[in-house]
């Protein structure tokens, strides 16, 4: 069996001249929680829709759970739970009726899980979907995906409308009931703290391309932010350098590994190392994806991403 739940190679999706997904290479290991991160319009939702056959790829290839998305779509859908970004289901049906509608499609559907999650998430099962709050609508979407016995859960912005208590419950359910059973969770989200809490892999997408795909543990152990000062900015070139941010005479270097060696190189170029700090996922995300931003001084910082 393929050890990747999702594997794309050069996957592309164009809308006219817009390259929404542009040569995406993505590897989601089976049994992992993969945080799929990106700014608005980076290509996350387009990628997810392409993986599920809702959009046809313009180029490249993709396998989900070992099945080619062009050849075996029904097999993929049978094994994949999907929560869409907009959290919209049939307005005229109640959650109980939505369960009735959905269960027939999935051979591994679990009625026991329906009862358990409906109680856990406090879902009003007999209220028409159109009359539910946004949070309850989101819960119903999760209920349907979680109970179908999927090998892969693709959750697009999973915590929209959820209060912190339910968000916490949901994340625990994902880890304790699903990942522990060897299932894979792909979280497409802006909520970096949620992703950081449960993900073991992250992929950061920008302009339809993967900028970074790594273990979260790797970021914690090896990624460092080096703050340095110098009158002039030396030209730095290193495969370990992720980004540079400048503010007057100060520079912040985000490096992937061997921070001490990198600092030694900066010192050799006449820079003074102020501090070397571990980084959060948010700092890595911002370092990779932000453009010019105003600094405290009011002057813009700059970012350079190595080719």
């Amino acid at each position: 069996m393929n050890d990747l739940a999702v594997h794309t190679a050069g996957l592309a999706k164009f809308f006219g001249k817009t390259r929404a997904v542009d040569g995406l290479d993505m590897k989601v290991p089976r049994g992992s929680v993969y945080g799929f991160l990106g700014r608005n319009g980076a290509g996350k939702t387009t990628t997810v829709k392409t993986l599920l056959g809702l959009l046809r790829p313009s180029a490249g290839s993709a396998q989900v759970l070992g099945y080619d998305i062009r050849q075996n779509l029904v097999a993929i859908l049978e094994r994949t739970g999907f929560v869409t970004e907009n959290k919209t289901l049939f307005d005229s049906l109640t959650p109980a009726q939505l369960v009735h509608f959905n269960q027939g499609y999935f051979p591994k559907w679990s009625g026991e899980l329906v009862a358990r999650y409906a109680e856990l998430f406090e879902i009003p099962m007999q209220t028409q979907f159109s009359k539910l709050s946004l949070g309850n609508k989101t819960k119903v979407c999760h209920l349907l995906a979680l109970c179908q016995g999927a090998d892969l859960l693709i959750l697009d912005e999973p915590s929209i409308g959820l209060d912190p208590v339910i968000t916490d419950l949901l994340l625990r359910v994902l880890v304790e009931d699903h990942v522990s059973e060897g299932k894979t969770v792909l979280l497409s989200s802006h909520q970096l703290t949620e992703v950081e809490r449960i993900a073991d892999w992250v992929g950061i997408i920008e302009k339809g391309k993967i900028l970074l795909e790594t273990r979260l543990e790797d970021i914690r152990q090896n990624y460092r932010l080096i703050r340095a000062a110098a009158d002039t900015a030396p030209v730095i070139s290193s495969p370990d350098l992720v980004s540079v941010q400048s503010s007057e005479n100060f520079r912040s270097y985000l490096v992937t590994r061997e921070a001490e060696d990198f600092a030694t190189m900066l010192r050799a170029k006449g820079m003074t190392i102020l501090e070397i700090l571990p980084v959060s996922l948010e700092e890595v995300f911002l370092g990779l994806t932000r453009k010019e931003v105003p600094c405290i001084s009011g002057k813009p910082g700059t970012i350079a991403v190595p080719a």
Partner: protein
Amino acid sequence: MYLWKAWHDCRARVILYILATLSIGVLFGLQVESWANLHAYLTVFRGVHRNQWFYFDDFYITFTALHHALGYYGIWMHTFYEPRWDALGYGPLAMLLAGLSLGASGVGKEYGAQTMNFVLSRPSHRRNFVLVDWVVGLTAVVIIPSALAFPLLPFLFSVHAKGPGNVLGGLPVLWVLGAAIYGLSYFTTLVTGSAAKGLTLSAAALLMYGFLPTALHEWWHADLLLRAVEWTLRGLEDDAWPLSPFAWGAAVFWLAVAAGFLGASLAWIRFREV
């Protein structure tokens, strides 16, 4: 699954139409029984175009004037005037309304409701959603005029042996006409992704179908299209089967139109992105 959903979405309308047609059928049947001038009605079944009493009917005069104004008899008389004197005239009207509204309740409306992502991420071939919709829609299209016709049969048989035959003979034409209208509404809803837009486009297409040949005839004396349209509506005329040969050509034409819309819908949903 989706069959349950499709039925859930349109059941209120189907039941309403069935109750309405049943009521009209029963009421009209009772009227036939108590009609003082039965002979006038029987002459219709015998193929005599109209009895004299008919021409003093104010409603008929109104529509005769309309007929002259529009220069076109066809479907307008059937849908607007004939419900007054012949319950079967309700058939095309019921087909028109039921076909349009049921077609607009197909899977195409899910685009507008933003639920197409959810529907198409269920593990089923896309064609199945269309086929299930059509099974439900065509079943309704068959049941609705039948609910009108069958309650009439015993009443009509009691006044004339040819009555039931006349009623039953019109049914297949109504079925295929209803299927075509359903197909039009279904396809336009699927393409536009909106029930409201689909209904509007379909209604516009039907209006054009009725008015364009008349306009061409009245303004440019071009009769070809008018004759073609009248040919397609032959099965709905007063002297339809068994008083005259069954309108196979018209029935096959509408069947082909319905099949064309089904094929187009299957092709469209296969390639449509969400």
